[in-house]
């Protein structure tokens, strides 16, 4: 190979490498209490829907406003606001992954990933429940 070819290769590789470094703006998984320390920072929460508190969603008033309370395994609790339609399986979910920012004590989230028993066909406990309901 000519020197020039090698130089071009190295420059391209370096440019791509640099871009990759620049693009990495990873978020983190947090607990509710550590999220409260990081106001305004984009994080992921692994939590559960607090079924003892109300879930507010009125599609007629505003189809883009959902609020509910979430708790995590360490006992933290926060109000969550999701400016989108309510995922249908929210109440049945066993676990939720919430992505967003803590702002003024409210978790403003823009993505909700639900872990629902209905999706877990391969889950033995769930199968036991289903078969007993027949």
């Amino acid at each position, binding site marked *: 190979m000519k020197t020039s070819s090698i130089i071009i290769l190295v420059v391209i590789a370096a440019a791509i490498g640099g871009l990759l470094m620049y693009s990495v703006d990873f978020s983190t998984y947090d607990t509710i209490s550590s999220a409260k320390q990081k106001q305004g920072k984009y994080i992921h929460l692994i939590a559960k829907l607090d079924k003892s508190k109300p879930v507010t969603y009125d599609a007629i008033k505003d189809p883009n406003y959902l609020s509910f309370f979430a708790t995590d395994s360490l006992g933290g609790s926060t109000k969550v606001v999701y400016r989108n339609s309510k995922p249908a399986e929210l109440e049945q979910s066993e676990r939720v992954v919430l992505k967003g920012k803590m702002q003024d004590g409210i978790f403003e989230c823009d993505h909700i990933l639900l*872990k629902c028993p209905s999706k877990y066909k391969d889950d033995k406990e769930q199968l036991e429940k289903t078969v007993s309901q027949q």
Partner: protein
Amino acid sequence: MNFEGEHLLPGKLGQFFVLLAFVSSIISGLAYIMSGRQKQPDEERKWISFARIAFGIEVFSILAVFSLIYYICANHLFEYLYAYKHASKELEARYLLACIWEGQEGSFLLWSIWHSVLGCVLIFSAKKREASVMTIINAAQCMLLLMTIGIYIGDVRIGSSAFVLTRNEINGPIFSRPDYLSFIKDGIGLNVLLRNYWMVIHPPVLFLGFASTIVPVGFAYSSLRLKQFGDWIKPALPWALFSGCVLGVGIMMGGKWAYESLSFGGYWAWDPVENASLVPWLILISGLHCMAIYNATGGALKASYLFIILSHFFVLYSTFLTRTGILGDTSVHSFTEAGTAMNILIGMYVLAVPLPMLVLYISNLRKMPAADIQNEEDLTSREFWMFIGSLIFFLSALFIIGLTSMPVYNAIFDLQIAEPADREFAYNKILVLVALLIGMLTAFSQYFKYRHTAKRYLFKKMAWPAGISLVVCILLLIFYPIDYEKKGPGFMVAIYAALYASIFSLVANAAYLQTVLKGKVKAGGGAIAHAGFAMMIAGMLISSGNREVISDNRKTGLFVPFDKDPTGRSSENPMDNLTLLKSVPTQMGRYTVTYVNDSADQNEKTRTYYNLHFQKKDSSSGKSAEEFRLSPDAYRMKDNNLSSNPGTRHYLTHDVFTYVSTISIPNPADDTAQFRVKEMQIGDTTFFSKGYFVLNEMLKNPDNERLHYSANDTAMFADITVHGAGNSRNKAYPGLVFNNGAVQFMNDSVVSQNLYLNLSGMAGEKKFKIGVKESDKAIDFITLKAYIFPYINLVWAGLLVMACGFIVSMTRRLKAANHITFLSVTLVLVALFYMFFLANN
């Protein structure tokens, strides 16, 4: 205990054939290895025919296993857990195959069926490389079958069998009864999200793509074993092209499926599962180009080996990502964890072939001939730029898999890293540059010649395409600008640059076919594939860049005050959901949309279609300029879970795409009001709490602004005018429709008056029973998301062109006759055209 009604024979047979297949894969593999060690050609031939027989038994057993699984699912033998989990009685016959590959075991089986088919082809075509290639295939088969074998070693179950019995796997009080089967009325059935015709087509095609990546690896192995480096490239190249074609099409079928039936709001979301299948394709394409370089110039041999081995490795790595449950928190395609023993097996499968291959490759690296020193790579040589292109694809593949593998780093190093806030942008901002570079490279590298190109020739040939694309791009900028401002001007410029590059590539490759090859299509496989790829990228840039949310809540002015939003939402994020009250026309972008009514599916009880009427009025004349109906649908489960499928109106230039995000849940406890039946004659008036209504006339098979029946129907509707509060006047049409002897009541409502009307029949001559119900609770509504995807057809058309390019190249490498090339291109084109443009439209 003797259990009643069980059919145990198919299970026993199935288990026997799984074991037989597993054992014969080992025997066949060993016999092929032995054949390679023989000195005498006679002995070698004996070992090979022995290995072939063993492989034949293996193929037969795999087909038998598949047929038996089909049998237990088709006959609803719910004593088998597999049938219980994946089949159900209401499931339509066309989904029977789909429910087989919904499960882990079935999809591994599908994979080994493709290995079997490929193996049979190779036995007849691989000639002196048969033994090596088949050794590799048998090694993979052995691992795949091990995962479906389900035998116990001590307390550990190795693999998971599709023939286990429900009563042995699940604890439940009913299983202590001999007649337990009579309690299992139905199976769980295919996940409603997967009930789509793509579920029947996409997995087999994708798995054929996955399975076929092993063939070039087999050829590479034969050359490493015999130390005849480089002689594998020629026979392996058609296979690599085949793999690239099938895998590429398979991936985009997944995209089309996501687009038309899963409510992700698009065809590509950079979901880890999608990425995992894209990465091997990118590396395979790199490998393909390096192989072509070797074929023409003798260079890039080491890279060819590496990319071919890695592309197969990443196929297996994607299997590892999607099946071990490691992506649980990042992917919407939630796969469950299959248990530690299974995960270890999957891990072994990932490494079984690629690891020894890599070791063999590295240990032979020094012995491989380097490219001819005399023949230095020239900056005006085609191979130099092809290699740069391969490198870019390879690096972008590493970037994608690097970002996608985050959960793996978390698991290994016990970290808490999560994906970036805006996942799509994290990928897009890099890949838009990849699109730019690849567009430019595929545009001009065709015009380069191998080894050296005269500069004058180059400028002469390139000037026109470059100029034309510049003009097209400027025209686009003026008349159809891309409106994607939310990521700033820098990204906008990048989008335009990439768009220019892809248009340039499309024009340049088309021109290349015309001017350089003088229309000799057969030699132009590369140019055709590049043009198709460029078209696809251009389509992606335009359709995503100019995607328009028409269900934007702010534009209707209905629910949101104009000044400051009290809920504090930001103005950058359009609020995609819009609530439509039943029979209240709502402005949505350029359309007036009315949620007319619901209709239930004929076969599937839980599925409901929401019929929407779209109308666009001509602004000057006020006449209806465009009118159509869309019926997005949703499955409503027992516990009110909702799984919705979009309704899409396809035009040549754009798609209007809608899906239901929420529905009103009729709660019988809320609505205690009953229908009061009034007997009315034509012209009679009945009062209700907010006003009165008049029965104007009875309509037979009406065809008016709301009802569309023809003379072939048997439908009767009451034409009623409701005079409600505030001098309002509304029309209502409750009716009866006779359908194959069954009566359907088509109730109607005037939502603004909370009035429900029903036509329940005749009451003597000229008297009609009209049911009246008033309710202040149940307002029927749906919440809708609606988008316009412009020029989405470019994406699918580009894919079709690209697939044709692959096939043209492949048949040329196989030195096929003209009519064979023509026939295979036509066949693939027709099939894909049907699937992508006709089947679901």
